[in-house]
């Protein structure tokens, strides 16, 4: 009886571990979307063409050059970036600010909410959410 009880306990523990793993798996998926947006924004402010290519959705491929060059006239960095997937997973909202410096003057671009799509198992940034 004791053995049965131990086996049952172990089964419950294993099951709960599975369940936890599953929950963590979902969180990982949402984190991936947020991470993709963070990766995209980081690439954009540093005019990193490879980074932008990696995270830009196929629907916006025509805008690739513009996305790469948009901040090329300024020195830009992101302060306090923290992104999280929104409910439903179609958008990611970011806190933080792009700070662009030109000629000694600062210009702030508060981060916002962005559309994301999953393409071939990878999350992609797909423009500002309407």
């Amino acid at each position, binding site marked *: 009886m004791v053995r049965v009880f131990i086996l049952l306990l172990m089964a419950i523990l294993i099951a709960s571990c599975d369940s936890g793993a599953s929950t963590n798996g979902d969180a990982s998926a949402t984190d991936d979307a947020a991470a993709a947006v963070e990766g995209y924004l980081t690439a954009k402010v540093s005019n990193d063409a490879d980074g932008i290519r990696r995270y830009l959705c196929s629907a916006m491929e025509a805008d690739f050059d513009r996305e790469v*060059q948009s901040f*090329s006239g300024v020195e830009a960095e992101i302060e306090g970036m923290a992104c999280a997937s929104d409910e439903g997973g179609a958008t990611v909202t970011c806190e933080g600010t*792009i700070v662009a410096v030109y000629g000694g003057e600062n210009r702030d671009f508060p981060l916002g909410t962005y559309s994301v799509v999953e393409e071939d198992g990878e999350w992609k940034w797909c423009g500002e959410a309407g």
Partner: protein
Amino acid sequence: MRRFSLFLIVMLLLASGAVFAQEDDPTVTTSFRQALVFAGPGATYRDIGVLNPGVPIKIIERNKVGNWVHVQMYDTDGTVTLDGWIITGFLNYPDELRFSDVPVNPFLPDAETGSVESGVLVELYGEPLVGGISPTMRSVLEQGIEAGRDPYLVTKIGDSLIVSDLFLNLMNQTDEILGPYDTIAAAIDAFTVVDDSIANEIGMASFSVLDPMWAQDERCEAGETPLDCELRVHQAGIAFVMFGPNDVRSMNEERYGEEITIIVETALAAHVVPVLTTFSVHPDDELYWQGINLNRELVRIANEYDLPLINLWSAAQILPEYGLDEDKVHLQNSGFTFLKYDSGHEAWYGMSLYNLLALVTLDDLRTMIDDIETNEGAS
């Protein structure tokens, strides 16, 4: 008594003739510094002599802008000893000098392209300092008025070169001193300039004005570009477009041409007249030829779409440091915070020159708008 009456009439006629002759006589003035005299209204013309300061000259005619004048120097028996063109800003301006009284030479172009060795530069010199307003732009103005746009409201679309209030926004003040340039007074009175354009920011490039991420103004809708937002929010009828110094460092002329074309087509689709401007490039800049190529794209696009084009690049060739500040990018300004054209600033500072060229262009647009409104009123 009859003889006396005749004598009186003759004397009166002579006197009135003298008055008329005085009014028609060219204004006499001097230069305040030594100046090269050219065969035409621009430094590409052959230089034919030197005018020393203090030597009396007569102003015969001018170019359309007024920044070059045709002058003649005489000896004591009235023989012309020097006949050519000098930059206006080197002159002492007599109080009575008004360019509305000085005839415009209708024949000589703003540059003698035959003397320019580089075929690439010929393309730029070949454009007038201020082009006219085409019938195509008349249609755009008419459509804009029909759509509720304010034809007398001017906005700015561009980078740090024009973001300063010293460009165009000085028109919104009433403290201008125009000296001889009375020809631009009506434009200053007629137009108002948007003072918070959403599509004119420091650090902007032609790419960024089409990127919604740069539209941070609360009046903009999600996903709206700064350009679309600006054209919608202020409903201006005319837009001065100036990109270049940032773009030249990050893109080739083909890509630049594509972006400017999108900007132009967006403006035209919104029934806004886009005014393009070639930008000044310092020959010491390592990207000089790239800047030239971008300017050639502006000329090509202006011609393709019949747009007003200000050839600041050509006009600034004669200015110290090509009208540029120490950074060799931005236009040098005089330090005065009002429009001041009574002391030759247009011959020294790029910003003064650009404002002058812009105001001459706006005066052409004003004439066309007045004509449109007159015809509408009559019909």
